[in-house]
């Protein structure tokens, strides 16, 4: 940073300092503009990443002295069933959350018409995304209630005993993911609707002349043009899946018996809850989550870099 901004000594050494400033203003200006944001971002975002990784090598309750334990926290993770349950659930989240992308595309194609009131329809379809996940979580918790929720009503209608989705170890994660899909589909839908706006009518026409229709039209003519939208939809869905916290916190708190846990929630639980304040262990979990996310971040940055060059 310092190499670019020069040093203050030259400023005072030359009496007509304005000329030095003037000559270097193009060099100095970006740093002036950047300084407040960069410092702020560094303190609250960049430095904490490294601090967290550092803390993961310690045993620390957040108050007393830190004790260096090296890789012990990571070794302990290897034997932690709850950690593996969380990790597997994270994979389920990643895989099933991806359904939001084709579902969003489907709804976008369905709504991509010009009829009266379609704009209102589009915005109402987008609604779930605008609502807090806490609210979404509460709504679905209530829906899943076997006594009076809609699940209960549907099952009873068919004369079956309704399952207690959120209390069932095998179903709970899928129940939560399903709730999460609702806003995520809305998000993907809006990305695709915007993308569809930019689809070239010429190509569609050309495709039609070549007898492309239905799936062929979608696959060969429309989807290639929707590539940027698809890319962003996948990126935000992956990030959304790995960030899943609110729904789990509201709907189950990771239960029953940790069966709906994910890394993001398990980390919180070990570091900051009634189970104790294990900052070091929590940071180790966070580091694992960060490394998984890093794969996607790198991929995204690499793509952006290609664009910047080209």
């Amino acid at each position, binding site marked *: 940073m310092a190499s*670019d901004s020069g040093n203050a000594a030259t400023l005072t050494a030359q009496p007509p300092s304005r000329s030095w400033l003037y000559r270097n*203003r193009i*060099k100095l*200006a*970006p740093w*002036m503009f*950047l300084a*407040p*944001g*960069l410092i702020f*971002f560094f*303190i*609250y975002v*960049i*430095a*904490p990443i490294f*601090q*967290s990784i550092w*803390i993961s090598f310690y045993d620390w309750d*957040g108050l007393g002295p830190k004790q260096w334990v090296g890789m012990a926290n990571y070794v302990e993770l290897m034997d932690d069933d709850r950690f593996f349950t969380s990790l597997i659930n994270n994979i389920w989240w990643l895989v099933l959350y991806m359904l939001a992308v084709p579902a969003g595309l489907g709804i976008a*194609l*369905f709504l991509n*018409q010009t*009829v009266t009131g379609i704009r209102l329809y589009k*915005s109402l*379809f*987008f*609604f*779930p995304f*605008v609502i*807090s996940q*806490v*609210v*979404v979580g*509460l*709504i679905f918790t*209530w*829906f899943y209630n076997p006594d*009076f929720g809609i699940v209960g009503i549907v099952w009873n209608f068919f004369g079956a005993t309704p399952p207690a989705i959120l209390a069932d170890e095998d179903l709970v994660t899928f129940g939560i993911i399903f709730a999460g899909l*609702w806003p995520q589909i809305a*998000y993907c839908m809006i*990305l695709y609707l*915007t993308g*569809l706006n930019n689809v070239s009518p010429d190509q*569609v026409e050309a495709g039609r002349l070549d007898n492309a*229709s*239905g799936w062929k039209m*979608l696959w060969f003519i429309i989807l290639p043009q929707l590539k*940027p939208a698809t890319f962003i*939809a996948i990126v935000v869905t992956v990030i959304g899946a790995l960030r899943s916290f609110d729904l789990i*916190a509201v709907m189950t708190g990771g239960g029953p018996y940790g069966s709906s846990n994910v890394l993001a929630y398990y980390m*919180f639980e070990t570091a*900051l809850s009634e189970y104790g304040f294990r900052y070091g262990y929590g*940071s180790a979990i*966070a580091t694992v*989550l*960060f490394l998984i996310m890093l794969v*996607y*971040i790198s991929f995204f940055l690499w793509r*952006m870099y290609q664009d910047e060059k080209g």
Partner: protein
Amino acid sequence: MFPKPIEKSSAAVRTGYQLILPVALFLWLLPLLAIFLTSIRPAADINAGNIFGMPSDFLLVENYLAVFQQSKAGEYLWNSVRITIPTVIIAVALSCLTGYALSVYRFRWAVPLFFVFVAGNFVPFQILMVPVRDLSVSTGLYDTVTGLVLFHSAFQLGFCTLFMRNFIKALPFELIESARIDGVGEFKIFWYLVLPLVKPAIAALSVLIFTFIWNDFFWATVLIQGDHALPITAGVRALNGQFVSQWQLVSAASLLAAVPPVLMFFAMQKHFIAGLTLGATKG
């Protein structure tokens, strides 16, 4: 189904489409509709098992009033406002500066620093949790609105910078160049030339950040303890415990929490969507 315009289809298809639309919307928003109906229902309905049917009595005003009278929902809502508005202002203002610096000047660090902001924006919250909480405790900012605002502003800078930088980059550079040749100072160029041009971006960014921050739950949980600073999202969860089985009040409170972002979305829809999809259409 495809960009095949519906006008070119037969009348039957068109009518069918018009009929399916409301049905699809109804199914899609069923969860919300149900929770709204519950929020205006008398408690007796719920006890009697009338959960999804028509309410026997419409208690719109009474139930919503009860939420304010029987809980601290009013205070929580006010806290959300106190957290969200300053965050939007700080994050957007700072990102105008950073975005300008990273798009207009050609210097070696422009792309790497830009990527740092972009990467920071995608980081999982949990990796920041322990150090940020620790920092807040040691600076006395833990459990304060200020502490939460400062963190949110800093974190949102990642996304905001990405956004502003791409927007400013798309402006005609010749404008800035010619102003420079005329001897206009760098800050004046930013203030009088660029800022007026990025107003639409500022609007788009503001409503997006408003929604993000209003809906935040994680950081409120980590950095706030007391009712004096708890935002409505975390408050609704607390109310869920307080109003045990008073589902009409829980649903009313939940919907109250959703009102501001929804209003914001409807008022600024165009900007909101433009903001969300910037980068989706290009890049």
